[in-house]
C-alpha cells in the first residue's frame, strides 16, 4: 500500500550564499518559511520540484521537505528542518539572527 502523502514544501540552498531557501507559489525563492508554498498532493509536489530544480542559476540541491500546515504557515515536522529554518543552536546565527 502506498504511504499516505504528507504536506511538503520545496527547499534548497541559495547558490551564492548557501542560505536555506524555499519555493513560493509565485515560483520565486524566499528565505522565510512562512512564505513557502505548501504542496498537498504528490503530483503537484513532483511538478513543483521539477520546476524549482531547474532554477540552477539561483539555487542548489532542491528537495521536498515534510511540513505541517498551520495558521502561520508551514511548520517543520522533523528537527533537521527546524534547524535549517532557525540556524545553528550553539550561536545566534543564521535565520534567527536575520529575522
Amino acid at each position, binding site marked *: 500500500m502506498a504511504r499516505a502523502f504528507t504536506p511538503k514544501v520545496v527547499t534548497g540552498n541559495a*547558490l551564492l550564499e548557501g542560505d536555506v531557501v524555499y519555493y513560493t507559489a509565485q515560483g520565486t525563492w524566499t528565505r522565510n518559511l512562512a512564505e513557502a508554498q505548501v504542496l498537498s498532493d504528490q503530483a503537484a509536489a513532483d511538478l513543483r520540484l521539477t520546476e524549482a530544480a531547474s532554477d540552477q*542559476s539561483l539555487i542548489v*540541491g532542491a528537495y521536498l521537505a515534510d511540513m505541517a500546515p498551520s495558521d502561520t504557515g508551514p511548520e517543520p*515536522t522533523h*528537527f*533537521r528542518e527546524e534547524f535549517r529554518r532557525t540556524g545553528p*543552536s550553539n550561536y545566534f546565527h543564521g535565520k534567527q539572527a536575520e529575522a
Partner: protein
Amino acid sequence: MYSYNEFDTAFLAERNAQFRSQVERRIDGSLTEDEFRPLRLMNGLYLQLHAYMLRVAIPYGTLRSDQMRMLATIAEKWDKGYGHFTTRQNIQYNWPKLPDVPDILDALGSVQLHAIQTSGNTIRNVTADHFAGAAADEVADPRPIAELLRQWSTDHPEFQFLPRKFKFAVTGADADRAVIRAHDIGIQLVEKDGQRGVRVFVGGGLGRTPVIGKVIRDFLPEEDLLPYSEAIVATYNVLGRRDNKYKARIKITVNENGLETFKELTEKRFAELKPLFGGVDQKMLAEIRTMFAPPAFRNAPTHAYDAAREADPVFRAWADTNLAEHRQEGYAIVSISLKKHGETPGDATADQMRAMADLAETYAHDELRISHEQNVILPHVHKSDLPALHAALKDQGLATANIGLVSDIIACPGMDYCALATARSIPVAQEIANRFDELKLEHEIGPLKIKISGCINACGHHHVGHIGILGLDRAGVENYQITLGGDGTEDAAIGQRTGPGFAYDEITGAIETIIKTYLALRDSEDETYLAAYKRLGVAPFKAALYPEKANAA
C-alpha cells in the same frame, strides 16, 4: 618549518586561478551544479546545512604565527569571526560565500596554506602527533616524514580517484597521540639496532565499520617509506571495492582479502617500485629535515615558574593539566584549551587566533600546533615565561585548565552545521561540560576522554572515546547511543555499546550516571576511569544506566 619553493608557489597560484575561473563560470551559468560540484570539492568547498563550508588543511597540524594570523583575518573578513578546528588537523569555516572563496584561497596561498585534497577520494591532509619535535618521549620528529608524504601525495596522478578517501597519520613516539591505529595507513618512527625505520599499520578506520589498524611491516628502513606507501595505496587502488561506497575503504579491502594476501601483493608491487625511486626522495627528505631544525633553545633559570606555582593555585592547576614534558631542559609544551565550559569545542574567534599567534611569537619560537583533540599547542615555551603566558591567555578566555579532563570533549559539527548529521553534537558537549563544571568534580574524576559524533561517520572519534556518544535520528527525534572503553592510543580499542540510546534531554544525566558509577567503584583516586572500566567491564555501568532491566533480571 617547511617553506614553499618556487614550484610550490607557482603551482598553488595556478590552481587558485583555475578555480577562480570555475567559480565565475558557475555563477554566470556556463557550468551546472553537477559539473561544478566535483570541482569545488577538489578545492575543499562543501555545501552544508546553512551555508558553504571551506575546509583548509593544516599539514601535520603545524602553523607559523603569520599563518594563524591569516586564519584569523579570513574568519573576520569573509566568515562570521570564528573557525572550527577539527580532528583531522584542519580548520573549517562555516559561512563563506561562493563568490568570496577564490579570494580566500588566494589569501591562504599568500601564507603557504591551501584547501587541496581536503575532500574527495584522494590522500587527505597528513596528520601527526601534535607534540612533534617537542615531546620528551620522541624517537624523532615525525614532521619531515609527514611533509615528504604530503609532497609525494599532493596531485599524485595515480591517486586522485581512489575508491574512497585515504588518511595517513604519523607519530615519532611509542605513546600514540596521533591515533595512528585508526587511519588507513599509520606510521610510527622507530629505531632498531641503531637504524632509523618505521612501523607501518594498515587498514584502521572509524566510521560505519570501526577497525583497529594492523601491522603490515614491523620494521621498514626509512628510505623505503615512499615506495612502500605507494605500493600499499596502489594495491588498494586495484583491489578496493568501488561497487559500494561503504565497503570502499582499505579496512574492508584488508579484511575481505586477508592481511596476508594484501601484504603479499603490496610486497610484490614494492619490489617493482623500489628501484624507480632511485634516491630522489631521500635527497628531498634531507632537505626537508633542515627546515624542521629545532629552534634556538635558551638556557635560563626557571625559578619564576616555581615561584608562580607556589604562590598562585590557579596557575598551578593550569600547569598541572595543560603542560607536557619537553625534550629540552627548562622548556614545556603548552596546550591551550579550546574547550572553555559551555563553548563550542574546537572553535576559536579571530581575536583568539590572533592572540595565540602573538603569544607564539613572543614566547614560543613562532610555532603553533593544532591537535586532533581540537586544541592549540605552543610546542616550545621556556618555563620562566609560563606565568606571563598564563596571564595573557587568561585575558583571552584561553586559560581553561581542563586538558584531558571530562570537559575536554571532541565534538564534530553535527546537526548544527553538517548536512550528513543525524543529531546534534555540539550542544551535548556544551551541556556535559557545564554540568561537570557545576558539580566541581572535573579534577577529582581525572583523565577521561569523551568524544561525540553526530552520525555514524564518526568524525568526532566516538568509537575511541573512553566514553563515546553517537547521535542518531530515531523517528524524527534526536537519540544518543553510548559506547564505553574506547581508546585512541597505542592500546587502541573500540568502545562497547551499552544498550538503547538516550533522548537529548537525558544524555547528560546518563553520562553523569556513568561517571558517578566509576567514582563509587574505583580502587583508589589513582585508578583512572579507563583502568577501572578495564577491570570492571561494562556490566556495572549497564546496570546503573538501565536499572529497570537490572531489576527485572
